[in-house]
């Protein structure tokens, strides 16, 4: 930086600036509920909403670590476009039509399928509208999913691990010596 704005001006503009310059985390996730057993057994009356507001008690750990499914099997668009994509109901049903189709949580999926309804998941990782992020570019650059999303394979309830703040992005961009131009993400 060759120029710094003077301090008093910074103070003047600070309050306006905050809204757009600070992106904080979702805060402390609630105490993780040991729900794996519940998911498997399909305990009647289990309220999915209690699991971090998700419509279905979905466990990444179950799918990734125990069943050995790779991230991009479900998040199939990650290498092809900016958006990783949430798996379609069809993809869930592709397996669950036969696998564990009697459990309460899977029956919810089958319900969505039969009624031709999408599943209204609650978004965990979100970026402000003025940030343009492309999964494709990061997959192409061999950034492991876990570097940004944490070890999701070990999570029963997906949670945000990294801050996803601009400073956090830039740390990695600096380490890897890739562009840190504002226009890379803001346009």
């Amino acid at each position, binding site marked *: 930086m060759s120029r710094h704005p003077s301090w008093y001006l910074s103070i003047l503009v600070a309050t306006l600036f905050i809204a757009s310059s600070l992106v904080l985390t979702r805060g402390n996730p609630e105490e993780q509920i040991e729900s794996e057993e519940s998911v498997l057994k399909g305990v009647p009356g289990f309220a999915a909403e209690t699991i971090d507001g998700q419509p279905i008690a979905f466990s990444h750990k179950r799918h990734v670590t125990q069943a050995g499914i790779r991230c991009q099997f479900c998040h199939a668009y990650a290498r092809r476009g900016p958006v990783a994509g949430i798996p379609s109901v069809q993809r869930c049903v592709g397996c669950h039509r036969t696998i564990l189709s009697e459990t309460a949580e899977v029956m919810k999926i089958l319900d969505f399928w039969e009624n031709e309804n999408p599943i209204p*998941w609650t978004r965990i990782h979100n970026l402000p509208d003025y940030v343009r992020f492309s999964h494709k570019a990061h997959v192409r650059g061999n950034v492991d999913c876990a570097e940004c999303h944490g070890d999701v394979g070990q999570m029963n309830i997906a949670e945000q691990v990294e801050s996803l703040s601009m400073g956090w992005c830039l740390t990695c961009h600096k380490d890897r010596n890739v562009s840190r131009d504002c226009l890379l993400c803001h346009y």
Partner: protein
Amino acid sequence: MSKLPFSNGLTETVGRRTFLRVIGSAAPAAAISACSPLPPEKIISYVIPPEDIVPGVATWYASVCGECPNGCGTLVKTREGRAIKIEGNPSHPINRGSLCIRGQAALQGLYGPDRFKNPLSRRTTNGNTRQSGFESVSWEDAEQTIVDRVTSLSSSGQGDRIAVVTPLLTGTLDTLVDEWTVAVGGARRLQYETFAYEAMRKANHLVFDRESLPIYDFSQADVIVSFGADFLETWLSTVSHARDYADAKRIRNGRNARHVHLESRLSLTASNADEWIDLKPGTEGLVAAAMVNTIITEGRVQVNGISQAELEQIHSLVAEQTAELVATETGVSAEYIVSLSRAFSDPAIGPGRTLAAGGGVSVNGTNATETQVAIALLNFVAGNIGATIKFMPETMWNSIATYRDVLELTNAMREGKIDVLILHDVNPMFTLPSNAGFAEALDMVSLVVATSSHPDETTARADLVLPTHTPLESWGDHKPASGLHGLMQPAMRPLHDTRHFGDVLLNTGRAIIATTETDDPDLQENTPFHRAGDFFDRLRDEWRTRYQVEISDSTNTASPNSDNTGQSELDFEAFWTKSLREGGVWETIEPDSTTLSETLKAPVLQSLAPSVDTSRTLTLVTYPSLHFFDGRGANRPWLQEIPDPLLKTTWSSWVEMTPDTAANVGAEEGQLVTLTSDHGNIDATVLINPHLRDGVAAIPIGQGHTHFGRYASGRGVNPIQLLNAEPESASGGMCWTGTRIDVTPLELRRPVPRLQRTFDQQERELAQAISVETLAAGDVHHEEPHLSLNPEHEHPNHRWGMAIDLNACNGCNACVAACYAENNIPVTGAEQMLRGRTMSWLRIERFVESSSRESDARGVDTRFLPMLCQHCDHAPCETVCPTFATYHTDEGLNAQVYNRCVGTRYCANNCPYKVRRFNWFDPSFPEPLNLQLNPDVTARSAGTMEKCTFCVQRIHAGKDQARDEDRNTKDGDITPACAQTCPAQAIVFGDLNDPTSRVSQLTDDDRRYRVLSELNTRPAVTYLKKVVK
């Protein structure tokens, strides 16, 4: 102080960023909400993912533009199932990748907020049907209404009491409409276009025995003489002309084409001419005839093997029109006519190297056909027929009804001979003169059905309104010229409960057939209404036939597996898929040989001179609008917002007069005047336009709507109301010019929003020009950059730059519309425009230099200067930004980071090019116009500054694709929206670090200069001077 998450707290050297963060966290309650996480959001999965959609990645569909009959090929960019941008199809032979301003704005027809959403039927209360409102009905009921009425007529043998009016249609839909009219027992049918070129068709019939319109090849012409033809605006295939014209104007071997334009008003096309002759309106034909006469008497006829008899035959037609005689009637000197004739038939350039284009609305007076005959003869004697002017075996223009045919239908309606009238996508209530009596005639028709996607003056008078798909939602095909078969496919699902007009015909046709008994064996089983399937199936049937014809016609065409005589369905599928992907099938067809008609006789030029009418004070010239065509574009907000290319007016219409004329009638700029003709009167605002003949008042066509949605209704005036309903006698065309009017000034002012008020450069040399001679002599010198205190920037990888050729730019505004579409630029509206507020990132400045080269030719050195962010190396905006929101990237872009901008507007104040735009308000995109927004570009909010980014999203996309292919970007990978659509190819973008790129080479061109180079801003945009004679 609260704990700062994800920071190590205050470090010893407190940076600006850390300081802001501390202030932010420590600030009391006001700041707390800003620090909380983003609100929870839902993320919705697909139930079944569409095969051809990757979220965030564009899908393109080849199709055909439906904004005018010229049939340009398009590529429609869709994102997540909605169309967001239209570009020209580079492989289409007509438009070759470009689109005009109206084609770009077709998206706003699709997403028009006032579109019909379901069928409407007139509520019949109190017996006064025309005054009552509409109520929603189901499609079944609506179609049943038609079926009932049509059946009762056709079963009683009164099929001729039904009439169908469509615009110019070709291909499958055209055939289907014909089949429908036969199936219902002989309904009348008209193809109605406002600009129907009747006089040209008639003249070609008289001179060449071909009632047809030829193809004009401007690229091969060394001398272009235009008799009022606005061939860069609305006259025939304008995008194609613009490309060819730019080719002709390019310097080759030290010279370029000479363009002379004769018209009483300086049109956009005339602005591009080397000489503009403001002759008396309606006398264009006299000049053409005198030119023919001169060429023959001087023995310069350029036709090989012409017989003496033919020569004498032609000469006898024009013998009376000597240059001297014509000079007095036209206001063009005899010397000029003779010298132009010689240039037009110059043996040095050879036969067939010139082109005379006559037409447009401006020469459509009472002598329109005679004028066109004279122009056709002029082209003939210069040997242009078959060279620059080609008659093809087929032309779509023949099927258009003449204006007289429309009047005959109107009379039949008035006489009660029509019971059911179906008006598809036409707006005669707006485009016919009021005293043609169409409104009264409609009252005599018991069932008026209007099928249209949007409300207009005609649907407002209908009994039943059937909402149809827009072209972007439709299947179809279009055959604009011999050998060209464009295939139109929907780019997205219909937005509303609309149907394809073809499906309406099929549904009603089937029901009518089922209830009608007929003895005609042709009608018993052999119609499409006896077969199953919708319009899409009919289209495929037609193309299956075409495929089989192609296979049987030749074995060496591009048809897949043409050696397979089995012609299996599999082969057809391959052909169909290929046609869909490429947007159609193109074959090269040789033009027909064209000879002089044997029956060409003297009376054809009997009334060549315009009738002299001194009844009122001024002669009215109406001209079609580049933006609105015949008015059909007026409900597109971009077309209203983007300034008129000549007068830089927006959201309005007006009456133009010269300063002297205005003074004579006692009116001044901005004053409201009443214009009265024998046929009607309107109130319009006076605009002073010096580039007009004295004694003439000019009004653009296209505004003055009453029922055309929120953007068009109540704006400007419709000059068609002043015109005579009487058709021109020879051809039956409308008389657009020559009506006499009186002007009565009113004590009222109605300002016209105008974004540029002077066309004088004040010697600032913004838009520069160089003469052919200077250029050929190599007498060029360029200003070197001055020393600067600013540090030099380094551009290690790329350095993006642009070159804009002012000699190619014709000011057509297509780039501006493309920029609006690509970059989510909001419209500000008439009220803000009156304050001079626009959000456009790209504007075209117009400057007029006075010149006194030819005694007759008015100085029309008009220069169009596309002005956008210059991406300066030493940008004045960057040094004054307190928040670093604007800065220089290492790829040479002047960046604008919206989320850093706090809206001090220092940058805009310091920008010498005035290309930065401040959002005083949050932009508004009334639903569903918001669906057009480009998801790759941030929609800016109030309080931020914005400007041209060189389409940085496209730069990213180009680099992304190159990396996917594991290579560096190459020249041509990245094209901004403006450069992409430019019909004249005036804008070139690329990497200045690559010495082989086109932009690098143009940046070293002898004609190069930079705007305001004395400020030493070192722009990345290089302009190439216009070449003047």
